[in-house]
């Protein structure tokens, strides 16, 4: 409509509205003078004008207020009306039960305790009313479908669903076995259960779910509030089957645009597929279990929501990568409560509730538990554990010190004889400190997958130094400056001194201390104390006597190269660095960072004039990690290296070698528990970078505690490898530099599996539109080239030893046991695939 026309319409509209009702029609006809279109236009607007009345007379905020008010999930005080209803219920009969008291209000209605009306002292039950939403007919009809299965549920960790029906007023209800206990997270905290105890409790929950899955019931609403632990320590899973009964989505699988879509789950624990209203499968329960496990282990939730806008929650769950458990326990997290006050979750609090301390928590979760939790939390259901049983299996293996499935077998990627031998050692369930020596593992050069720079600049050999049983693993270790001695502590609290070359072992008389660093003269250790000895102490090697230097709860503390000063973290808020004299004199803060940053590790520079540290900000959208130096007055130098976002997990360790090179660890993108060591050179006085970063090693475990021996030939560090083996690696470093190219792959749908032999391209697997394809991307280009894709799914690629071909499976679907699966191979350069095996086979 052009604007002149519109103005006419407008004019006429107002004129008509000013007329008497009865006059309007004639007035309009006359005014339009035969323009039928105009007349009808104004007439229809007038008609609506008459109806418009209360239309949008309120405000937009008023429209969404009911929904907004409910967001945030915090309980609202019951209104007078609600209290009256509850009062009326007490003493009322429902079926053969009499209601005794209210136990609480669940999400959809109240929960009451009830007894059999005929006998006061017999079985008590819980009755849950479904007030909100569905008609009783709908609920009861559904319930009848499920009732047979649910009624036959007989598992010690499942609260049975006994009956269902509707009250006289037509309110649907469920009668359930009464469970009295605490939600599992509160229970564990209240009893200060350590990690193994929590895992054991969790395994019982898993067994309940496994049982249910075998009976084709998926819980769909697993959260701590639905897992109550009795006073005797028995966890029981509640609300089994209820989510399914109430979920309209389940009905025939079609939801029209006008139908109500009822989300019967708690968003924070919901899997991505539930959020996206995709089909639910047992792996969805695995995901929710993963969230619960994350909380039990770390005290944090995997995703932090600032607002609680549904779109924010959905986006986080579907797209953001949580921090690894071992990292998140080192962070301080601020939470805003419903009333606007903020609380902090601190490493101290978390570790205290787990009977531990911050440094131990980090190393306890590193490796296996990181891998297990993160595997369960994967966005794509088929990349998680396929069943709850698989998840339980890995947890059990971890508790026994055996290798777990969630950590990629080093064989697949590395295939060296050494590693095979290492795995044998691993299988015998020992936890090691292993020393990596110079010389001779040529096998590493012949890696099946030739990553650029994969030839480490030294060669990496490992030697077992000690053997610790699982359950008593090494908690902390420090290597002397001359590279001759290792001081370490174990879970039992004992401290030992090991002569690295000779093997001589001496136990130090004190206990409950963790070695942090050595004093350069080799006569004293800087240790941090546990429990009542909390703080930083100076301990004599000779007689084990110690003197307290400072109150310090931080993760890291280090003695300066000349032994005159100690740099440390003072509080459990991990965003500052303090300095004091070697005997604790003049403690003062030299650097403080933004509240949202954390400093995960720092190290002295060779001249004792600067510190290098890793600054990490963990908020999802703004995750970043940089390596910086500062002088002793806290003024900062240039950023030396900034870590790509996909590898920013906050657990980077740094060390500054005497020759000026700074070493740091970056997570290996292929696993949750392996790291690469990189180096960047910087001037020890000014902090200025002297070159670009380069990679030194290929897939270590998490490396830490670097020490260069005095002659500079030996470089020792600690790393964890599979099955929690803690190794000490020794590396000879040559001067070659390698410039990494960064290939950014989408975090969650691509899975890189290796470099081509000429190191010019990367092959990766990608899930797009429900099909899996194999693509190749040259590192100097932006877009990948598709090698294999189409109607079928191509997965699990593995390189041949020569690196020129790769094996993969092709199948019609992504299902695990698809009968159409074939094993094929193809040249990396492209070309027709060769079918190797078809039909029923097991891949090696």
């Amino acid at each position, binding site marked *: *409509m052009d604007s002149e026309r519109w103005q006419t319409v*407008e004019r006429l*509209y*107002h004129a008509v509205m000013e007329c008497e009702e009865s006059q309007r029609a004639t007035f309009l006809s006359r005014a339009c003078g035969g323009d039928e*279109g105009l007349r*009808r*236009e104004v007439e*229809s*607007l*007038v008609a*609506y*004008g008459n*109806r418009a009345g209360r*239309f*949008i007379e*309120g*405000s*937009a*905020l*008023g*429209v*969404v*207020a*009911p*929904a*907004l*008010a*409910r967001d*945030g999930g915090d*309980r*609202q005080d019951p*209104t*007078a*009306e*609600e209290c009256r209803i509850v009062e009326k219920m007490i003493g009322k009969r429902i079926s053969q039960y009499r209601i005794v008291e209210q136990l609480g*209000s669940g*999400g*959809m*209605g109240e929960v009451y305790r009830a007894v059999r009306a005929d006998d006061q002292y017999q079985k008590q039950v819980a009755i849950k009313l479904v*007030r*909100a*939403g*569905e008609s009783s007919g709908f609920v009861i009809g559904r319930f009848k479908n499920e009732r047979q299965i649910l009624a036959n549920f007989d598992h010690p960790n499942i609260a049975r669903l006994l009956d269902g029906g509707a009250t006289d007023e037509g309110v649907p209800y469920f009668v359930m076995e009464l469970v009295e206990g605490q939600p599992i997270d509160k229970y564990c905290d209240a009893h200060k259960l350590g990690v193994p105890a929590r895992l054991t409790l969790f395994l019982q929950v898993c067994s309940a779910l496994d049982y249910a899955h075998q009976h084709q019931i998926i819980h769909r609403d697993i959260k701590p509030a639905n897992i109550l632990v009795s006073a005797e320590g028995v966890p029981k899973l509640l609300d089994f089957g209820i989510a399914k009964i109430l979920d309209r989505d389940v009905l025939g699988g079609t939801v029209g645009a006008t139908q*109500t*879509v*009822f*989300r*019967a*789950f*708690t*968003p924070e624990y919901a899997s991505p597929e539930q959020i996206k*209203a995709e089909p639910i499968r047992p792996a969805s329960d695995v995901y929710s279990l993963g969230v619960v496990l994350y909380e039990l282990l770390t005290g944090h939730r995997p995703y932090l929501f*600032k*607002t*609680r*806008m*549904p*779109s924010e929650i*959905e986006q986080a769950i579907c797209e953001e990568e949580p921090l690894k458990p071992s990292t998140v326990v080192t962070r301080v997290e601020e939470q805003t409560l419903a009333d*606007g006050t903020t609380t902090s979750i601190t490493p101290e609090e978390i570790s205290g509730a787990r009977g531990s301390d911050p440094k131990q928590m980090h190393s306890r979760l590193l490796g296996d538990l990181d891998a297990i939790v993160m595997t369960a939390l994967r966005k794509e259901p088929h990349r998680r554990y396929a069943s709850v049983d698989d998840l339980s299996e890995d947890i059990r293996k971890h508790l026994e010190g055996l290798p777990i499935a969630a950590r990629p077998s080093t064989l697949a990627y590395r295939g060296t004889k050494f590693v095979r031998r290492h795995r044998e050692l691993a299988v015998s369930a020992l936890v090691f400190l292993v020393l990596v020596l110079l010389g001779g593992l040529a096998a590493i050069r012949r890696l099946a997958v030739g990553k650029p720079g994969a030839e480490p600049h030294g060669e990496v050999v490992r030697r077992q130094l000690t053997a610790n049983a699982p359950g008593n693993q090494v908690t902390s270790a420090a290597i002397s400056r001359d590279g001759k001695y290792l001081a370490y502590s174990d879970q039992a609290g004992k401290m030992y001194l090991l002569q690295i070359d000779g093997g001589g072992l001496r136990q130090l008389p004190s206990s409950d201390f963790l070695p942090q660093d050595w004093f350069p003269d080799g006569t004293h250790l800087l240790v941090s104390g546990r429990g009542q000895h909390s703080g930083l102490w100076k301990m004599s090697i000779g007689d084990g006597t110690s003197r307290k230097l400072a109150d310090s709860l931080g993760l890291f503390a280090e003695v300066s190269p000349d032994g005159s000063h100690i740099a440390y973290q003072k509080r459990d808020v991990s965003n500052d660095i303090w300095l004091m004299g070697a005997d604790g004199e003049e403690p003062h803060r030299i650097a403080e960072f933004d509240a949202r940053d954390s400093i995960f590790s720092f190290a002295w520079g060779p001249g004792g004039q600067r510190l290098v540290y890793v600054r990490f900000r963990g908020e999802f959208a703004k995750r970043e990690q940089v390596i910086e130096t500062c002088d002793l007055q806290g003024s900062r130098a240039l950023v030396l290296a900034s870590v790509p976002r996909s590898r920013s997990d906050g657990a980077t360790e740094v060390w500054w070698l005497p020759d000026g090179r700074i070493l740091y660890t970056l997570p290996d993108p292929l696993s949750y528990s392996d790291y690469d060591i990189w180096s960047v050179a910087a001037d020890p006085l000014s902090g200025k970078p002297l070159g670009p970063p380069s990679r030194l090693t290929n897939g270590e475990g998490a490396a830490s505690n670097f020490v260069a021996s005095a002659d500079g030939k030996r470089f020792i560090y600690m790393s964890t490898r599979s099955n929690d083996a803690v190794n000490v690696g020794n590396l000879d470093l040559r001067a070659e530099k390698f410039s990494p190219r960064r290939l950014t792959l989408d975090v969650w749908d691509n899975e890189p599996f290796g470099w081509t032999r000429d190191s010019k391209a990367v092959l990766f697997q990608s899930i797009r539109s429900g099909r899996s394809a194999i693509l190749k991307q040259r590192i100097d280009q932006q877009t990948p080239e598709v090698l294999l894709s189409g109607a079928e799914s191509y997965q699990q690629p593995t390189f041949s030893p020569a690196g020129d071909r790769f094996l993969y499976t092709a199948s019609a679907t992504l299902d695990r046991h698809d009968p159409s699966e074939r094993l094929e191979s193809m040249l990396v350069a492209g070309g027709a695939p060769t079918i190797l095996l078809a039909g029923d086979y097991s891949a090696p």
Partner: protein
Amino acid sequence: MGTSPSRDITQLLRAWGTGDEHALEELTPLVYDELRKAAKRQMAKERDGHTLQTTALINEVYLRLVNLDDVSWQDRAHFFAICARLMRRILTDYARSRSYLKRGGDARRVTLDEALMVSADPSLDLVALEGALTKLGEVDSRKSSVVELRFFGGLTLKETAAVLKVSADTVTRDWNLAKAWLMREMDGEQRDGF
């Protein structure tokens, strides 16, 4: 906590007003928080039997977000215009993200985290309204502004008139016609070839 929050918000609002989309990212959580608190207050009052003019609610939100002393009186018209646009954006986005929950009629919406009693939702589809409003803006931008300022921004007739620099009567007429137009548009009524 560093600079006082209300000052930051004023700057963010200004930035967004000049087209900085990034400012919206930072604004949204802050504003959303206040909206949520306001909604809670509203619901609490309703349950106890009072009905509050929800337009007053929005004003409260503004006051809590921004120190009006920071906004010079010449700027105020512009400031409120931006606020109204912001409300339109945030509330519509919110409604859109919740649209999986319910659409019209008397079907009731539930999630397991809901409070005890569910009140029937008003039947207004905010997302559809906003779409219709955009269309109205293409036909007549002043009327669209009137609706934006009053319905989303919570301004009174007089305030709207001041912002748009027209008479209150003009605003009233605009408002009436706009309502009729929007209602018809939302009904999907066909118009014959114009």
